[in-house]
C-alpha cells in the first residue's frame, strides 16, 4: 500500500530537484540578438541538468554552474547557442536569427507538425502572449476579433450562452457552423446550442463552449475548412479550433499568482427604455484568482494551472462560477520515446434569466412593450410597482446549469530513426451538465401567470446530459531528403466515438420550497441518445522542391456510423502547392528582397465532410406515452443511402512581406461547394410522414480573405503592430433538390428561409412596396435580406514601450446583412411604436403585411477589448516579475440600427442545428467588463 503512493512524490521530487542543484561558481552575462538588442526571457540551461534560468528585461542572467559544464542559450526565432564554462565569470552571448525557426510549426492535420511555409492552406494562430492578455475565459469570446477570418457573434450577454461562429460561410442547412474543437489532439464537446432535452429559457441557451478548458493554453490554431481539414474527416468541414496546452519548459521553475478584479455592467446602448435597465440591471463584481506552476528538466517538464472565478453578472439574477485546474507534462522516457500528457477539469455553474420567446421574460416584455405598456410614458407612480414586480420576479427566477468537464490527453512519440517517427494519441472528454428550472408558485404568481394564492402549481424540470468522446490516432511520419527534394510522408488512422446521453425529469403540481422531483405530484421523464463512431485512414505526402516549393497531396478514407446501409466509405482527396518565391537564394541575395521580402503563392483543393445526426438513417417507430398508455406511431422513415455531406473547396492565395516583413499582406480566394448537402426537405404532406434528411442539396460559398499585419513601429523602445482583416462571403443555395422553401427560424409571415437561389436562412416576408400612385402593394414571400453579413473582419492594434507598458485594442465589424428588430415589431403590434412604419400604412392593414419595415442592416463595428499592462519586471522583490493589467471589454459599439444585431439568442435552440441569427430579440447584449489584474511571478 505504501508503495502505491510513491508516485505522488514524483512531481514534488522534480520540483525539489530543480531548486536544489549543487552550484559551485556563479556566471553572469548578457544576451543580445543579432542587432545587439538585449533579449529578455532567453532560456539559459546547464546541459544535462535541470539547472536553468531566464534573462531579465535587460537581457542579463546569473547562474551557478560547475566549470566544464555547458550553458545552452535558446530563444524562439534565434539559433540555439552553447558555451562551455571555463574559468571566466562573465559569458555574453549574441544570438543569431534563425529564419527557419521563425517559421512557425503548425500542428494542423495529423502526424508531426509542419512548418507554415510548407502549407498551402492558411491557419489563424493565437499565441500564448495574446491569449493571456485577453480578459475573456470563454473560447469563442477569445477568438472574437482575434481570429482574422472568423465571424463570431455572441448571441446573448447571459452567462455561458451560445454563439454563432463561422468562417467561410454557412456550409450546411443541417448543422451548426461551429468548428470541431480539439484539445491536445482530443475532440471535445462543442455543442454550441441548447441540448435536445436541455432547458430552454425562451432564447439564449447554455453552450459547451463556455467550459472548454482555456487555462494554460500555449496556442490556438483556427483551421478553416477545405483542404486544411481533409485529414480530420467526419464533421470537420466547418473547420477546427485546435488548442495546444502548456507542458512546461525545461529550466528554472516558475510559480505565479494572479488576481483579477472587475466590474460587470450591462451594455445599455441598445435599450429602448432606460427603465428596463433600471428594473433588471445591476452592476456585478467579477473576481478571479489563478495560480500556475511550471518548469522541469530536459527529461521532464510540467505545467500546472488552477483558477477560481466568480461574477454576479450585470443582470440582477445572473451569476457564474468557474473552477478549473489543468496540468500538462512531457517526459523523455528514453532517447527515442517521449510521452506527453495533459488533463483538465472545469466546473462551470451559471444561472440564466428568461429571455426572448417566453412571456416570462422581463427583458423582452419591457422592451417589446408587453401589454401595450410604453415604459417611457408611465408616471413614476405607475412605474414603481412594475419595476418592483420585475425585481421580485428576478429574485424568484430559478434556472441553473452546472457543468463538470474532464479532458485528458496522452501523446506517445517514438522515433525509430531521425527520419521515421510514430505518433499515437488517445484521450477522452467527458462533460456532464445538470440544468434545473424551478417555477415556484411564488414566481408564477409574481409573473401574473397564476392567480394570487396559488400554492400547488410549482414545477421543476431537470435536464441531465452526459457527453463522452474518446479519440484515438496512430500515425507514422517519414522524412527523406535528397539534394534538391524533401519528402514528408504521413500515414495514419484515426477514430473517435461520441455518446451523448440526455435525460429530462419533470415534476408539476408542486408546492414551493423543494427541489426534490418526487415531491411533485405529477412526474414525467424523457431521454435522448446520440451515439456515433467515425474512423478513417489518411495519407499525406509533402514534397519539397529545392526547399522553396512544396507539393502536397493525400486523402482520407472516411467511414461514419451515421451513414445508411447501402453506402460505402467516402474518399476525400486533397492536393496543394506552395511556392515560396522569396526563398530562392538569388532572390534573397538581391536588393529587391529588402523591399519585398516574402512572396508566397498557394493553391489547394480539398474535401471535408459533415455528418447528419446519428440514427437518422434508420427507419423507426415511436412509442409515446399517451394518457399513460403506450401509443405507437411512425417515426423516422429511414434513408439507407444517407452519407455525410461533402464540402469541396478550392483555394488560391498570395502572401507578401514588405520591408523585411514589417508589412505583411495575405489574400486568399476560396470557393467551397457543399455537394450531397444534407437537407431535410419537407416531406410531401400526403405521405403523412416525418421529414427525412437526405443528401439532395447543394450549397456554395465563395469569397476573399485579406489580412494585413504591420509592424508600424519597431525600435528598441517602441513597438507597434497593426493587424487588419477583411473577408467576404457569398452564400448561395444552389439546389434544394426540388423541395419547397422551408422556414428555419422566425415566423410564417417573416421567416429565416432556405430556398434555391438565396443564401441559407435568408429573410423572407410580406413586404409593403410603394407604388407610383402612392399606394402600397403587399408582396408575400419577398426577399428581405441575407441574415449573415457578407463582409466582415477584425482590427487589432498593439503598442509596447520599453517592454514595460503595453496597450492593445481589438475590434471587429460586419456589414451587408439584414436583421429583424423583433422587439420593434412587437412594440408596433402592441400599439406603442410606429417609428419606422410609413404613416399612410398605419391602421390600414395588418402589420404582418409590411414586415419589411422591421428589417434593418446588421452592420456593426465593435471594440471588443482595450487593455493596458505594466510590467514591473523584477523591481518588486522577492517576485521575479510583477505585471499589472487593466482592461475593458465591449467599450464601444457602433451599429446601423438602434438595436444590437448580435443579440439573437432565440435562434439557437435546436441541438447542433442551423442558426441564422436573423432575429434580434429579447435578450441582453454582452456586458461591459472593467477588469484589473495583478500577476506575481516567483
Amino acid at each position, binding site marked *: 500500500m505504501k508503495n502505491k503512493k510513491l508516485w505522488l512524490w514524483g512531481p514534488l521530487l522534480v520540483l525539489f530537484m530543480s531548486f536544489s542543484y549543487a552550484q559551485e561558481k556563479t556566471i553572469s552575462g548578457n544576451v543580445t540578438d543579432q542587432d545587439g538588442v538585449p533579449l529578455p526571457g532567453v532560456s539559459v540551461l546547464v546541459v544535462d541538468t535541470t539547472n536553468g534560468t531566464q534573462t531579465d528585461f535587460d537581457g542579463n542572467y546569473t547562474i551557478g554552474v560547475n566549470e566544464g559544464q555547458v550553458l545552452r542559450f535558446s530563444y524562439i526565432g534565434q539559433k540555439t547557442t552553447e558555451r562551455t564554462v571555463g574559468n571566466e565569470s562573465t559569458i555574453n552571448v549574441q544570438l543569431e536569427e534563425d529564419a527557419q525557426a521563425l517559421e512557425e510549426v503548425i500542428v494542423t492535420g495529423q502526424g508531426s507538425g509542419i512548418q507554415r511555409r510548407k502549407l498551402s492552406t492558411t491557419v489563424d494562430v493565437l499565441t500564448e502572449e495574446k491569449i493571456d492578455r485577453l480578459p475573456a475565459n470563454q473560447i469563442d469570446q477569445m477568438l472574437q476579433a482575434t481570429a482574422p477570418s472568423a465571424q463570431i457573434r455572441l448571441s446573448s450577454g447571459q452567462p455561458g450562452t451560445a454563439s454563432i461562429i463561422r468562417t467561410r460561410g454557412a456550409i450546411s442547412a443541417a448543422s451548426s457552423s461551429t468548428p470541431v474543437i480539439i484539445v491536445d489532439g482530443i475532440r471535445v464537446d462543442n455543442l454550441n446550442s441548447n441540448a435536445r432535452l436541455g432547458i430552454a429559457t425562451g432564447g439564449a441557451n447554455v453552450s459547451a463552449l463556455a467550459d472548454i478548458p482555456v487555462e494554460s493554453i500555449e496556442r490556438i490554431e483556427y483551421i478553416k475548412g477545405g483542404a486544411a481539414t481533409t485529414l480530420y474527416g467526419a464533421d470537420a468541414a466547418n473547420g477546427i479550433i485546435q488548442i495546444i496546452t502548456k507542458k512546461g519548459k525545461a529550466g528554472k521553475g516558475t510559480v505565479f499568482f494572479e488576481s483579477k478584479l472587475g466590474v460587470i455592467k450591462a451594455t445599455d446602448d441598445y435599450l429602448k427604455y432606460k427603465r428596463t435597465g433600471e428594473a433588471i440591471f445591476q452592476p456585478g463584481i467579477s473576481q478571479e484568482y489563478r495560480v500556475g506552476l511550471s518548469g522541469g528538466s530536459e527529461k521532464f517538464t510540467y505545467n500546472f494551472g488552477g483558477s477560481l472565478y466568480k461574477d454576479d453578472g450585470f443582470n440582477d439574477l445572473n451569476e457564474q462560477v468557474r473552477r478549473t485546474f489543468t496540468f500538462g507534462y512531457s517526459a523523455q522516457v528514453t532517447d527515442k520515446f517521449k510521452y506527453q500528457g495533459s488533463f483538465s477539469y472545469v466546473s462551470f455553474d451559471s444561472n440564466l434569466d428568461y429571455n426572448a420567446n417566453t*412571456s416570462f421574460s422581463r427583458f423582452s416584455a419591457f422592451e417589446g412593450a*408587453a*401589454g*401595450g405598456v410604453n415604459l417611457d410614458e408611465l408616471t413614476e407612480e405607475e412605474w414603481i410597482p412594475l419595476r418592483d414586480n420585475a425585481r421580485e420576479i428576478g429574485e424568484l427566477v430559478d434556472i441553473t446549469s452546472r457543468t463538470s468537464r474532464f479532458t485528458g490527453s496522452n501523446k506517445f512519440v517514438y522515433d525509430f530513426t531521425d527520419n521515421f517517427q510514430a505518433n499515437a494519441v488517445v484521450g477522452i472528454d467527458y462533460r456532464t451538465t445538470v440544468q434545473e428550472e424551478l417555477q415556484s408558485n411564488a414566481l408564477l404568481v409574481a*409573473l*401574473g*401567470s397564476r*392567480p394570487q394564492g396559488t400554492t400547488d402549481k410549482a414545477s421543476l424540470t431537470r435536464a441531465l446530459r452526459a457527453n463522452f468522446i*474518446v479519440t*484515438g490516432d496512430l500515425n507514422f511520419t517519414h522524412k527523406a531528403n535528397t539534394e534538391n527534394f524533401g519528402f514528408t510522408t504521413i500515414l495514419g488512422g484515426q477514430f473517435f466515438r461520441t455518446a451523448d446521453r440526455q435525460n429530462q425529469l419533470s415534476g408539476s403540481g408542486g408546492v414551493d420550497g423543494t427541489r426534490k422531483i418526487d415531491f411533485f405530484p*405529477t412526474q*414525467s421523464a*424523457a*431521454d435522448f*441518445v446520440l451515439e456515433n*463512431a467515425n*474512423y478513417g485512414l489518411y495519407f499525406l505526402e509533402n514534397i519539397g522542391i529545392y526547399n522553396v516549393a512544396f507539393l502536397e497531396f493525400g486523402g482520407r478514407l472516411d467511414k461514419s*456510423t451515421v451513414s445508411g446501409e447501402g453506402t460505402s466509405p467516402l474518399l476525400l482527396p486533397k492536393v496543394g502547392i506552395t511556392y515560396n518565391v522569396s526563398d530562392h537564394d538569388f532572390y534573397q541575395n538581391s536588393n529587391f528582397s529588402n523591399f519585398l521580402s516574402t512572396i508566397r503563392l498557394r493553391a489547394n483543393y480539398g474535401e471535408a465532410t459533415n455528418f447528419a445526426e*446519428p440514427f437518422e438513417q*434508420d*427507419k*423507426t*417507430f*415511436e*412509442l*409515446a*406515452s*399517451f*394518457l399513460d*398508455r*403506450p*401509443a*405507437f*406511431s*411512425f*417515426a423516422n422513415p429511414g434513408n439507407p443511402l444517407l452519407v455525410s455531406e461533402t464540402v469541396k473547396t478550392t483555394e488560391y492565395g498570395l502572401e507578401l512581406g514588405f520591408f523585411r516583413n514589417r508589412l505583411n499582406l495575405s489574400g486568399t480566394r476560396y470557393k467551397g461547394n457543399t455537394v450531397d448537402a444534407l437537407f431535410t*426537405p*419537407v*416531406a*410531401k*404532406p*400526403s*405521405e*403523412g*410522414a*416525418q421529414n427525412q434528411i437526405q443528401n439532395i442539396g447543394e450549397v456554395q460559398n465563395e469569397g476573399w480573405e485579406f489580412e494585413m499585419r504591420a509592424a508600424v513601429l519597431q525600435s528598441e523602445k517602441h513597438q507597434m503592430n497593426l493587424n487588419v482583416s477583411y473577408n467576404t462571403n457569398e452564400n448561395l443555395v444552389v439546389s434544394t433538390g*426540388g*423541395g*419547397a*422553401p*422551408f*422556414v428555419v427560424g422566425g*415566423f*410564417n409571415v417573416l421567416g429565416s428561409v432556405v430556398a434555391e437561389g438565396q443564401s441559407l436562412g435568408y429573410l423572407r416576408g410580406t413586404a409593403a412596396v410603394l407604388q407610383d400612385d402612392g399606394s402600397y402593394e403587399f408582396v408575400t*414571400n419577398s426577399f428581405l435580406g441575407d441574415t449573415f453579413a457578407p463582409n466582415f473582419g477584425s482590427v487589432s492594434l498593439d503598442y509596447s514601450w520599453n517592454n514595460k507598458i503595453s496597450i492593445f485594442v481589438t475590434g471587429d465589424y460586419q456589414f451587408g446583412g439584414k436583421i429583424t428588430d423583433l422587439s420593434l*415589431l*412587437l412594440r408596433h*403590434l*402592441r400599439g406603442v411604436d410606429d417609428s419606422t412604419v410609413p404613416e399612410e400604412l398605419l391602421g390600414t392593414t*395588418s402589420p404582418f403585411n409590411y414586415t419589411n419595415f422591421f428589417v434593418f442592416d446588421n452592420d456593426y463595428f465593435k471594440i471588443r477589448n482595450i487593455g493596458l499592462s505594466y510590467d514591473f519586471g523584477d523591481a518588486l522583490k522577492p517576485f521575479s516579475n510583477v505585471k499589472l493589467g487593466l482592461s475593458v471589454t465591449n467599450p464601444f459599439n457602433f451599429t446601423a440600427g438602434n438595436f444590437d444585431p448580435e443579440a439573437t439568442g432565440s435562434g439557437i435552440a435546436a441541438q447542433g442545428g442551423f442558426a441564422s441569427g436573423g432575429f434580434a430579440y429579447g435578450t441582453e447584449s454582452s456586458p461591459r467588463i472593467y477588469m484589473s489584474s495583478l500577476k506575481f511571478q516567483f
Partner: protein
Amino acid sequence: MKKIVSTICMVLLLISCTDNFSSVVDFTKVENPTLSEASVVGQPNSSVIWLDGIKQNMAFVYNELLVLAELGSDNYVNTQTFYNQFLDNLTLLSADPDLRDATREVARLREMAKFGLEFVGPGDSEYSSEQEADFNFYLGLSYMYAGMYFPALPQEPGGAAISASQNYQDALVAFDKAIALNPGQTRYLLAKARVNYYLGDKTAAVAAATAALAIDDSFDNIVRFDADAPTGTPDGTNPANVMESALYQRATFDDLQPLPTLDFLDPKYSFLSDGEDAPVHYLKAEEALLILAEANLSDGNVAAAQDNLTDLLELIATREVRSIDDSIEGRTEGMPRSRPDSTIVVVNGREGLVLNRHSGDVEIPSVSGTSLTAEDIESLTADDDGLELLYRTRQEVFIAEGLRFVDMGLKLIIDENETLQNENISETDLGAVPLIPSFISAVASDLDAITYDAATGVATTVVDVNKILVANKTSPEVLPFH
C-alpha cells in the same frame, strides 16, 4: 519465471482475440434505442397500442385543424404572433406551413389507419373485430376531414388530388364497414350523419343521426389530449391541446380573441389536470339534434324542429359548466379596454353575451353552450329568421370545434410542398387554388371586425355572418339542405 510471464501473456492475448473481448475494443458499435418495425408488426397486442397511437394522432389532427378553422371563420381573431397569421383574413398561401401541417396530420391519420388494417392487425394474434372497426372508422375520419377542409386532397402518398365529394363517399364506405363490424357505436353513426349532412343527403343524414340518438340521446365522443407527454413525437407534433393554449393557457398572451357575441363561451378549453388537457367534443349528440332540426326546418316542419331544439336545450343543460379563474386574460389585446370585457356591454343589441373576468370566477360551458332560449324556440319560424337562429346556435354549440369554418363553405388549399414534389398535382389543380365563396370573400377582412365604445359599452360586429350564410342558402357551398 520468464516462462510463467510469457504463458500469462499468451493466455491474455488469446482471450483478447475472442469475440467475448472484442466488444471491449470495438468502438464502432452503436445502438439506436428507438423501435424498429419488427417490434410493431407481428407482436401480440400490437393493435391496441397502434390504436392508441391513432387516438394520439387524432389530437394532432385537431391541433392543426382547429386553430386554422377557428381563425378562418368569424369565431376567433389572432391578436398575437403565435399561431397562424394568415387565416384571419382568409389569405390562403400555398407556402403557409400551418396548411402543410394540417394536411400532413390528416394524411398520417389515413396512413396509420391503413397500416393498422394491412399490417398491425393481421400480424396481431389478439386482433379483434372492434379494433378492425376502429381502424376503418379512423380511415373514414381521415377521408371525412379531407372532404370537410379541402376542395380536393390525395388519398395516397404522392397521389392525385381527390375531390371533396369523393372523399366524403369514401368516408361513408369506411364508416359502413366500421358499423358492420361493431354496430352500436354513436361515433360511427354521427360521423356518417355528418358526412351525409355536408353532402346534402338529408334522408341519410337524418337516418344516421336518429340511429345515433337511439343508442344514447346524450352521447359525447371526445378527442383527448395529454398535457405532459413530450412534444415532438412524431416530429412537429404536440399531444397537448393547442387550442387550450391559444384560448387560455398562455395567460397574459391573449392570443385568440372571440367575436364579442361568443364571449360567454370562451374559453371552452381550460385547465383540466396536470396530466390531461381539456378534450374536444368532436362527435356529440348536439350535432345529431341540430341536423334533425335543420332537416325539419327545411321540410317546413317547425314543430318537429322546435322539439329538436328543446331537446338540445335540455341536453345542454346537463352538460358540464366549468367555473374558472380567467382574470389573467381580460380581453386586453395588449391595449387595455380595446375589446368588450364587461357585463354592461351590449353586442349587436343583445345583452348578457360578455362576461366580466375580473370579479371572480366565470362560468363557462366546456361541452356546449348557447344563448338560445325557450322563448327563441317558441317563436321559431321556417323562414330565414329561423335559419339564422339555427346557424347562430350551431356557431355557439360548436365554437372551438372547427365546424363553423365548414358551415361557412370555406376550404383550405393544398400546400406547395405537395404541389412541388407530387407529380400528380399541379398548382392549378382543384384543391391547389383557393375556393372561397364570393359572399364570404367579399367580407373576408371584416369577419372579425368590431366597433366598440368602452365608455358606452356598445359593441357591434361589422358583419353578421349568419345573415350572410342564410341569404346565400341556395349556394351549393353552404346550408346543405337548401
